[in-house]
């Protein structure tokens, strides 16, 4: 079996070149220790903030995701009127991560619409799932009745 740890080396480079890659809570020196920890277990989510901006413009780096998730989440977050800008890009076709940018109108931190978008996407999925399963059940029952 092929054994590969995708983009592990890449990840190291990314972290060392991006001192800006800090998570909201732990800015500054403490982030170095957190980074070392991050490298060991595969990172899922990172937050990148440019210099001189506060928490209302954040780029989230979502690892191991593509248009499937990126586009649906962007759609959900765009529905939020607090959000000024929301977009995503796939960094490179051979890297499995997306840069997900959220810019709010200033009042709130970018992480809030991000979290809300995720929860709303779960709600939408659950609604579709329950409706779908109910309809399939109904259809099957109807077809069985026709057979008899």
């Amino acid at each position, binding site marked *: 079996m092929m054994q590969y740890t995708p983009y592990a080396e890449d990840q190291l480079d990314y972290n060392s070149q991006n001192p800006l890659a800090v998570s909201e809570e732990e800015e500054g020196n403490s982030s170095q220790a957190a980074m070392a920890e991050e490298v060991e277990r595969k990172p*899922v989510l990172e937050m990148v903030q440019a210099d001189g901006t506060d928490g209302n413009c954040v780029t989230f780096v979502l690892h191991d995701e593509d248009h499937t998730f990126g586009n649906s989440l962007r759609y959900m977050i765009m529905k939020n009127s607090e959000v000024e800008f929301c977009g995503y890009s796939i960094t490179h076709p051979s890297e499995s991560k997306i840069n997900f940018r959220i810019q709010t109108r200033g009042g709130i931190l970018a992480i809030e619409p991000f979290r809300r978008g995720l929860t709303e996407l779960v709600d939408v*999925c659950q609604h579709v799932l329950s409706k*779908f399963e109910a309809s399939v059940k109904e259809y099957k029952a109807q077809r069985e009745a026709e057979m008899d």
Partner: protein
Amino acid sequence: MAVEKVFVYNNTSIVQDEILAHRLGLIPIRADPRLFEYKNQGDEEGTEIDTLQFQLKIKCSRNPHSAKESSDPNELYINHKVYSKHITWVPLGNQADLFPDADLRPVHDDILIAQLRPGQEIDVLMHCVKGIGKDHAKFSPVATASYRLLPDITLLQPIEGEAAETLKKCFSPGVIEIQNIKGKKVARVANARMDTFSREIFRHDDLKNLVRLARVRDHYIFSVESTGVLPPDVLVSEAIKVLIGKCRRFLDELDSNHME
């Protein structure tokens, strides 16, 4: 589930080992992947919770009862065509008890794997594991999946007589229906859903301005075909659950980051 590893004990057929292994990998296996775990990376030996074992052992021989003058290989040789039906399941651990009546075998019996001549044989052992389509398409239980929007056809004016017949021919069968009202043929949209958007109507200058073709922007028609491993309605449910799982993964990550 799909064949991931092939142990070739003997292969004297003209199909090379690696080609044979690739062909075996693409055969859909009728086993519910939800009952199995993903195999851990670096784990060489499979266990009963993540691996299914299959065997393909077949040898071609001459048919002693064939007619002398025959030149038909089907009559001359026995086992000269190796089909997926020749693959047999070899239970690992307690699998025989776990799946007492489960028919673990390829979805189709008539997939031609190789052709043999007398004396040639194939003896391989296969390990099937669970995987995802992103890694290799052989793991995907979906054959085709597509969606389209519901067509919306409106007749802007009543269309009667010969024109109604022409209109009917412009669309897929069943879309336009012709009614007889007071001895007159009148066209009516019977079932817009049947339409394929052929746009044939736009070749008729006299008709094209009388019809409006549109799509219902919030009515999606998904079409999902399965390879036969799982029923298509299960595939849709599972796909939605995967998307929920992706959201949960990031929500959990957000929560754990805030805890630190």
